[in-house]
């Protein structure tokens, strides 16, 4: 298979404009003859469904929650980047583009990232017009903050609830189209398979999560915006329902999966407290603007933090990275925390934690100012841990947070299956090997509001699509396959719960395919995971029936997919003999412990093709060219 990214010709700043001009348009009167299936109602899916409906297409929109407003995007706290340069501090589209390519450790496609930076400006305008209550200055202008290692203030935010407010904007736009009759909404509906006809994506098989009934929906194009696969690790900052099922089924139907091993670990999460733990809670990265991170200098120092004098504390980020200090990018901060804990200097009952201390900031700015900036985060921390961060330093530890990998898409966001588009976190596109803070929201909305509406039109205008009936053989086939799988899960009646398997898988992944990876661990995983999967299919106990509300059955189906995806992640991590961004191979580091990239051999996106059950997947490479941003080793010293 030849991967064609369809990157337009011309200078980087003209590519998107000239591409848009060359895209074919669907005649306005014809738009209502097309039906687009949009799976997912997060920032990416919600904005896409609303915009496509505004244009006149018929849209069917699906989500697993009881309302589209609850998609996981709602949890994003920190903010959204845009190259508005409202602060006059030297920002520009080019600088945002540059920062993102560099932040992604040179594993993203330049043309895509440039387009993202261009569109970022329109996103803010659109969201303001929708009534998103962004933070404001006293004069009424939009406020910004700097975020996640950026040296300019370009992050727009709505208190600590930016994702919520942006999502509500998209959700409201979506509901407006529901009211107008252009969108038919299917909440509590899970996509379980993709239907291909004549090699094109033409439908999906879904399960109604209330009644358990199987349904098939056919259309002219399919858009997947189902979010990331961080929950492969069991414990992550993702919502419990976030899953990889939709993209994994599409992968098994022929869509290539790119860079599965690029996962992001977020440095500031609340540490694990016990083995009943069901998820990890993120504390916004913005805390690092004022909090200082430290561990005791001595190993095994169990004194309470206030008893440890300043001289015996190791502010290791400030020490190792004097110019960025506590604001180094996520991957760097996370690895440094792990290193400190591996040395035995971790804090808290488990020894897996470091302090994030606001003592100095409170002294300098006063408790009022700190409460104003971080009050809700502090409250949340106290609710969960029972500790008061105004008095005792917070304890934090890294956790799985975001997945840069995903289904491979070209410049038009189309996967290797014609007619199937992938948006948001579900695709692999713009973040390379590491995502900068506040850029996922930007990408989701760019994809949904401003890219897919153009590119899907070109496909529909230029492709001959035969009418498909709901009883087409391919449809029946897919339905049968889905049903057989659910029956098999229900029939196992073994002795272990779904969660117990998921936890075990998560542990394997966190240990060997998490913050740091090595050949040995990955190879062990490659034999342990299939074995666990086999045991799962034999020994899982789901209970209940297929045709009813059955949470366990939902979980079981998702975990079954995680096994296969986890294997691919390990395989990808093993093959990538370099360290870059979120992917840190212990074999490839500089003498002082920094990641060492290998641009000579690995400056490509690794896109894997499913070859069948038990078969090795095939690797396809999309070479990456860097004409604008020169390849240099990232340094935050």
């Amino acid at each position, binding site marked *: 298979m030849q991967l064609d990214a369809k990157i337009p010709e011309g200078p980087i700043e003209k590519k998107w404009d000239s591409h848009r001009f060359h895209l074919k348009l669907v005649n306005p009167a014809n738009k209502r003859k097309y039906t687009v299936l949009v799976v997912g109602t997060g920032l990416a899916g919600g904005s896409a469904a609303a915009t496509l409906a505004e244009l006149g297409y018929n849209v069917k929109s699906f989500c697993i929650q009881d309302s589209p407003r609850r998609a996981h995007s709602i949890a994003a706290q920190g903010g959204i980047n845009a190259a508005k340069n409202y602060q006059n501090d030297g920002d520009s589209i080019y600088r945002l583009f540059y920062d993102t390519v560099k932040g992604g450790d040179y594993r993203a496609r330049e043309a895509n990232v440039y387009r993202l930076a261009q569109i970022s400006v329109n996103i803010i305008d659109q969201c303001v017009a929708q009534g998103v209550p962004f933070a404001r200055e006293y004069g009424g202008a939009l406020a910004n903050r700097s975020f996640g290692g950026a040296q300019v203030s370009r992050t727009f935010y709505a208190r600590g609830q930016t994702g919520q407010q942006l999502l509500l904007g998209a959700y409201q736009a979506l509901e407006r189209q529901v009211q107008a009759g252009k969108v038919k909404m299917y909440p509590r509906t899970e996509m379980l398979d993709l239907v291909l006809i004549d090699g094109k994506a033409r439908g999906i098989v879904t399960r109604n999560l209330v009644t358990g009934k199987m349904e098939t929906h056919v259309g002219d194009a399919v858009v997947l915006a189902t979010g990331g696969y961080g929950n492969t690790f069991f414990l992550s900052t993702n919502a419990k329902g976030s899953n990889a099922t939709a993209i994994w089924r599409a992968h098994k139907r022929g869509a290539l999966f790119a860079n599965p091993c690029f996962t992001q670990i977020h440095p500031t999460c609340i540490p694990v407290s*016990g083995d009943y733990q069901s998820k990890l809670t993120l504390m916004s990265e913005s805390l690092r603007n004022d909090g200082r991170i430290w561990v005791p200098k001595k190993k095994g120092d169990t004194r309470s933090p206030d008893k440890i004098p300043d001289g015996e504390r190791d502010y290791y980020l400030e020490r190792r990275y004097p110019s960025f200090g506590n604001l180094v990018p996520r991957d760097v901060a996370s690895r440094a925390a792990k290193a400190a804990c591996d040395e035995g200097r971790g804090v808290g009952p488990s020894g897996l934690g470091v302090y994030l201390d606001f003592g100095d900031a409170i002294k300098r700015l006063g408790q009022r100012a700190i409460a104003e900036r971080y009050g809700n985060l502090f409250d949340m921390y106290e609710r969960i841990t029972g500790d008061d961060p105004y008095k005792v330093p917070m304890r934090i530890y890294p956790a799985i947070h975001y997945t840069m990998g995903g289904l491979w898409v070209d410049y038009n966001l189309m996967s290797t299956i014609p007619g199937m588009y992938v948006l948001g976190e579900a695709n692999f596109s713009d973040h390379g090997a590491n995502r900068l803070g506040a850029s996922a929201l930007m990408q989701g909305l760019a994809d949904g509001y401003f890219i897919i509406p153009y590119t899907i039109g070109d496909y529909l205008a230029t492709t001959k699509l035969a009418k498909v009936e709901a009883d087409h053989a391919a449809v029946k086939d897919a339905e049968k396959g889905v049903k057989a799988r659910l029956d098999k899960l229900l029939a196992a009646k073994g002795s272990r719960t779904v969660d117990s398997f998921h936890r075990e898988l998560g542990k394997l992944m966190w240990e060997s395919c998490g913050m740091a990876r090595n050949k040995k661990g990955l190879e062990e995983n490659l034999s342990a995971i299939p074995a666990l999967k086999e045991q799962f299919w034999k020994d899982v106990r789901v209970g209940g029936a297929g045709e009813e509300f059955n949470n366990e059955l939902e979980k079981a189906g998702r975990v079954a997919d995680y096994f296969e995806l986890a294997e691919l992640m390990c395989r990808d991590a093993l093959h990538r003999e370099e360290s870059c961004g979120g992917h840190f191979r212990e074999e490839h580091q500089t003498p002082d412990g920094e990641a060492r990239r290998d641009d000579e051999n690995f400056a490509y996106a690794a896109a894997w093709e499913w070859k069948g059950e038990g078969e090795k997947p095939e690797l396809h490479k999309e070479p990456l060219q860097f004409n604008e941003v020169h390849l240099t080793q990232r340094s935050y010293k």
Partner: protein
Amino acid sequence: MRLTLNVWRQKGKDDAGGFVKYDVPDVSEHMSFLEMLDVLNQRLILKGEAPVAFDHDCREGICGMCGFMINGQAHGPLRGTTVCQLHMRHYKDGDELWLEPWRAAAFPVVRDLAVDRSAFDKIVAAGGYVSVSTGSAPDGNAIPVPKEIADRAMDAAACIGCGACVASCPNASASLFTGAKIAHLGFLPQGQPERERRALAMVAQMDLEQFGGCTLFGECQDACPKGISIDVIARMNRDYWLSALFSAPPSAGAAASG
């Protein structure tokens, strides 16, 4: 610690339900309430019983998916806290708890503690938005918004749509939810052009969905995990009656041009 739970079990919308008693012997104070239920469910599954169904997703108090009554209180006893963020350290050994689903005609039970809140979506669909299609927006800073106004809009916009207000209101009224959306958009300059239509349409929909009326009991604002104030209800009432009585009839010219 050890707890006794009385959980409302109901197979489906039209089935009769009832309390079932469970003994949970090994509760840790660091668990969240939902993690405690996870532990119970794991045990039920292995015993071949149906686990307790409850809605949840983010487990960090923002998606609004979780929620049920604990001893008659929506989201449990802690103020400003969703049940997913309620930790067991607030209970003590030997406590006996009653868990019931949200109860309202507009929120039929789906199963056990999970209910159907799609009535909320319909209220929003009736008018809870600014009708601005993608691409037609002016520059973000072209519409200045005073900080105080933006802050108050944000206060109202913080609603997570959990339904605790309805569940706790003696009238099962959705006024706090609806008022919050009307206030959020009504504060902002962007929301002004449709302010009248919005209030009329959303209030009418709220009635259609069979929510009760508001007698300003104030229970909802105490139960709301996001601390939405009943001030938004007064704003909704004002927007409603001003629009109902004084909104301008469509101009003849507009009618003629279709």
